[in-house]
């Protein structure tokens, strides 16, 4: 049953553009902080509360868990892109000293990508386990395969998995694109390509599993402890309360750790068979091959505009491969959502190939789509002879809060990067040529109901926040502490946060930029309830009606008298000297904008003789509603830009299509941006009073990775007067665009 809601007036908007809206706020929830709220903790710059533990090495990640008698698990993986596993002979492996458990995982079934699981075993040392893997005998019937995206579309291509390789989705759109294009004053058509990218979390997937009787505990590197608990219980046919998932610290996930990982299931099965705890950590190669990826894309965009810059038509025909997983490669959202274009048509087909399955990766689809769209928009502006930023300004809606945010971000970014310095495309002379480019992003990030938080306040003036969410490196733990400290008037050091454990109250997975906007409102409401309970207790102690009390200097005072009691002392009235507030995140209420924009500007320097692109600076202007921790928000933006630059310039899965095998499942030739390639990154946070939930927070996990590649590609085109339409923008591609290779 949904709680009663009270209609309230809320102040929302942007700095210097505040207005009031009416929203129905659930009873018992404090109104979101507005522009006039005087806040002590929220909005500050706070180093993460577990920072010292992390830099000193004492923070316990899954890989740090060591249990008495613990065994080491390893997985034997398919060396073939497509095969039927006729027989798995574990005998020779089991006969080796130190091998305690072995499982055949794929006997009798087809494996459809290099790296698919064939068998697993556990032994007393990692070395013994690895030696034993080599002793397993597998009989494969090698089957025809296809890994190349275009080859897989051919009518006579081998079937990669059950069903056709090409799986078209339902076209979507509005208006009439063909008529609008025919009537447009300027039009472009271009093909953009993006590679398969992998998540590359510093900490690979891994699990330590331990059975105690019928109870299973897993330490798992995950973005969703409750989902791991539930899914694992289901897979092992156990009840939920027999399984516990713990993830104290996570070394990154970026979407790849949102579901139940194979490592958790395999570790649990091995542990049960061996009767001992098992640690199973994936190698970097396994992580690349089999732990998910961002699908590739080929996007043909047609766009048309009127002379005055009004965008009148956008058409996208795309295909891409998420390996053996279909339905993951669509990328039309930015094209359908960013501009108020009246005529849009999108069509997409997923192409199934014999390579590792895709999974969610930081702004799935949006990153690929924004690169192509924002490149095309620049090409269209160039066709019209318009400045690309001016072109985008012409295409803002006048009745949209999101476009009001975007317009402000244009203004801030243009000023910070020095957009007025921008010359015409390719106007520079000399070997090294500078260019400026910019691009838009878009994301949701409003969060939603689900998380349940308990805030327990003790009479000694400390508080405990308990919620089964997880901190995947984004600063969730610190944000929860700050919000609770704010609401309770406590110093940050007096608040302890417990997360990362499925024995704690339920919380949703950390994906979709939903953690901060879903969890922090419930923290605030639970803290407010605890505070209300303290006041009620104080009223009883002071024998005065609630309405006669005020809080001043940490004490509850009966107005106009000298009768008072310490706010937290009042908890002494309750059993155990503690009061607990418990809140469930309510549904979103009316907000200023239910979505986030984000605009980035890049300056590059291109060596026209070698094709090397040096990014000089990125200005990233982002909104995320109310900012809880400014330091963490800026770090989040910087991290997103780094990932976006890495995608723009370096990252790429490279396959040998004749054998169907990866040639760069490592970090040597799968290149990830390093410290020397990182430019100056200037994060600019545009605070928006957004309402929508009790803290007014919006998510910021995904937005900063969306615009980056487009901004870089546009800056490169501005520098050299030629366009690279395929990521990554390598020296080879730049030289070819320049007609030199």
């Amino acid at each position, binding site marked *: 049953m949904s709680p009663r809601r009270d209609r309230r007036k809320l102040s929302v908007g942007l700095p210097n553009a505040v207005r009031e809206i009416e929203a129905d706020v659930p009873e018992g929830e404090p109104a979101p902080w507005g522009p006039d709220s005087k806040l002590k903790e929220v909005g500050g710059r706070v180093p993460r509360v577990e920072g010292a533990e992390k830099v000193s090495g004492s923070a316990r990640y899954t890989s740090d868990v060591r249990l008495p008698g613990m065994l080491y698990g390893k997985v034997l993986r398919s060396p073939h892109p497509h095969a039927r596993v006729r027989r798995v002979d574990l005998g020779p492996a089991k006969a080796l000293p130190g091998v305690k458990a072995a499982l055949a995982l794929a006997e009798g079934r087809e494996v459809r990508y290099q790296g698919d699981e064939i068998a697993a075993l556990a032994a007393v040392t990692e070395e013994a386990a690895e030696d034993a893997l080599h002793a397993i005998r597998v009989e494969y019937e090698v089957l025809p395969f296809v890994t190349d995206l275009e080859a897989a579309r051919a009518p006579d291509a081998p079937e990669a998995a059950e069903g056709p390789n090409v799986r078209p989705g339902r076209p979507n759109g509005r208006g009439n694109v063909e008529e609008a294009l025919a009537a447009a004053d300027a039009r472009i058509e271009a093909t953009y390509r993006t590679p398969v990218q992998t998540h590359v979390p510093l900490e690979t997937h891994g699990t330590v599993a331990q059975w105690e009787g019928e109870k299973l505990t897993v330490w798992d590197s995950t973005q969703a402890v409750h989902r791991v608990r539930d899914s694992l219980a289901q897979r092992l046919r156990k009840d939920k309360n027999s399984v516990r998932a713990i993830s104290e610290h996570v070394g990154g996930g970026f979407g790849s750790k949102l579901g139940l990982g194979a490592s958790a299931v395999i570790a649990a099965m091995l542990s049960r068979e061996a009767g001992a705890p098992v640690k199973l950590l994936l190698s970097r190669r396994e992580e690349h091959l089999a732990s998910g990826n961002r699908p590739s894309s080929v996007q043909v965009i047609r766009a048309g505009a009127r002379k005055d810059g009004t965008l009148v038509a956008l058409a996208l025909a795309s295909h891409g491969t998420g390996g053996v997983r279909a339905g993951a490669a669509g990328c039309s959202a930015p094209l359908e959502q960013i501009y108020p274009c009246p005529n849009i048509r999108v069509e997409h087909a997923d192409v199934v190939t014999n390579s590792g399955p895709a999974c969610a990766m930081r702004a799935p689809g949006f990153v690929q789509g924004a690169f192509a769209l924002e490149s095309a928009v620049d090409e269209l502006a160039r066709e019209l002879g318009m400045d690309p930023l001016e072109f985008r300004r012409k295409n803002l809606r006048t009745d949209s809060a999101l476009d009001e945010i975007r317009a402000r971000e244009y203004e801030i970014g243009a000023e910070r990067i020095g957009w007025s310095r921008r010359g015409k495309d390719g106007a520079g002379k000399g070997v090294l040529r500078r260019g400026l480019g910019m691009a838009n992003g878009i994301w949701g990030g409003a969060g939603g109901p689900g998380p349940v938080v308990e805030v327990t306040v003790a009479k000694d003036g400390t508080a405990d926040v308990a919620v089964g969410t997880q901190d995947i490196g984004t600063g969730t733990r610190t944000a929860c502490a700050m919000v609770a400290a704010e609401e309770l008037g406590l110093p940050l050091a007096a608040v302890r946060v417990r997360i990362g454990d499925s024995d704690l109250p339920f919380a949703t997975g950390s994906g979709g930029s939903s953690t901060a906007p879903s969890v922090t409102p419930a923290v605030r409401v639970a803290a407010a309830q605890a505070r209300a309970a303290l006041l009620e207790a104080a009223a009883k102690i002071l024998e005065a009606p609630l309405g006669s009390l005020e809080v001043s200097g940490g004490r509850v005072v009966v107005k106009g008298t000298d009768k008072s009691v310490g706010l937290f002392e009042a908890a002494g009235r309750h059993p155990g000297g503690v009061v607990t507030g418990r809140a469930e995140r309510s549904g979103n209420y009316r907000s200023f904008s239910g979505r986030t924009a984000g605009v980035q500007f890049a300056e590059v320097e291109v060596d026209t003789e070698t094709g090397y692109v040096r990014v000089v600076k990125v200005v990233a202007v982002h909104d995320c509603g109310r900012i809880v921790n400014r330091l963490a928000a800026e770090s989040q933006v910087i991290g997103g830009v780094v990932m976006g630059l890495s995608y723009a310039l370096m990252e790429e899965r490279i396959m040998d299509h*004749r054998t169907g095998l990866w040639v760069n499942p490592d970090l040597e030739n799968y*290149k990830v941006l390093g410290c020397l390639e990182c430019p100056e990154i200037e994060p600019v946070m545009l605070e928006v009073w957004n309402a929508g939930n009790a803290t007014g927070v919006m998510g910021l996990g995904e937005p900063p990775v969306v615009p980056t590649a487009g901004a870089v590609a546009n800056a490169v085109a501005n520098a050299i007067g030629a366009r*690279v339409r395929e990521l990554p923008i390598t020296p080879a591609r730049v030289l070819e665009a320049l007609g030199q290779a």
Partner: protein
Amino acid sequence: MRAFEYLSPKTLEAASAAVRTAPEGARIIAGGQDLLGELKERIATPGRVVSLKAVPGLRGIREESGSLRIGALATVQEVAESPLVREKAPALAEAATSVGTPQIRALGTVGGNLCQRPRCWYYRLADFPCLKKGGGTCFAVEGDSRYHAILGGGPCHIVHPSDLAVALVALDASVEVVGAKGRRTIPIADLYALPAVDASRETTLAPDEIVAEVSVPAGARSAFRKFREKLSLDFAVVAAAVALGPKGPRVALGGVAPVPWRSREAEAALGAKPVTAESAAAAATAALAPAKPLKNNRYKVPLACAVLRRTILAAAGVADPGPPAPPATPAPTKKAGEDF
């Protein structure tokens, strides 16, 4: 990795003997920065690993009768930081500075750098039974060859990964090696052989021969430049070293051939005259004239040309006026980005 016997003899002669007598093959280990990768991938499965760490006297860098003498166990970092090397053989110091990461330079040795195995992905991955591993085919010919050879390739198309070797070829260094028949000294260029000779190996050393010392004529003006896609850790896509010594210019390229590639064409183009912007450009063009790119590495030709031109100018101390006006090139037949 496969289990092995580990020996740590006290002399190079004993080390050589330990390799010679190993019943199931042996490999030498110094810094281990290269060998461990091969062992972990099980593309090397020696029954014995012979460490040089206990052999005394292999670490120093000193000057002796006009030459720098660098022990095989001197670390890459020691070479990079050595005031002697920086002054008397700047190309070598620059090459050392460009190697790997600070961690790799701190452990990697000069001897190991010269004898390291290629980075070719078809070689490094056990999945590919390539020519170099005794298989029947070079996968780069039909496969992804973006980082492979444009000069001297065939039947195997690796590029030699050593940066130090490129500088040493330009500097006309020689190498002292110890083996069953005692010590011998060979010009650095003769340390390497093309795959046409034997695709399974890159050096001319007998299996039990060990690099003991490198000798570098001191004092030539020289420079080294390396182009990599990722500055913070990458092997050369293209490297170049140029020395302008009393016997005339010596030019070497890295990242383009299965051996550190000496370009006599470039040397001839430079001749004995002072280097000018024009002669540097002409020499670079001459060096790349024999290039035969594979399917995916045509870009390395203009890239190597640019890097070499810049390196020649740097060695000569001539300001870089930028590249000469390009000759009329046919319009690209492919759309941007295709094929790579």
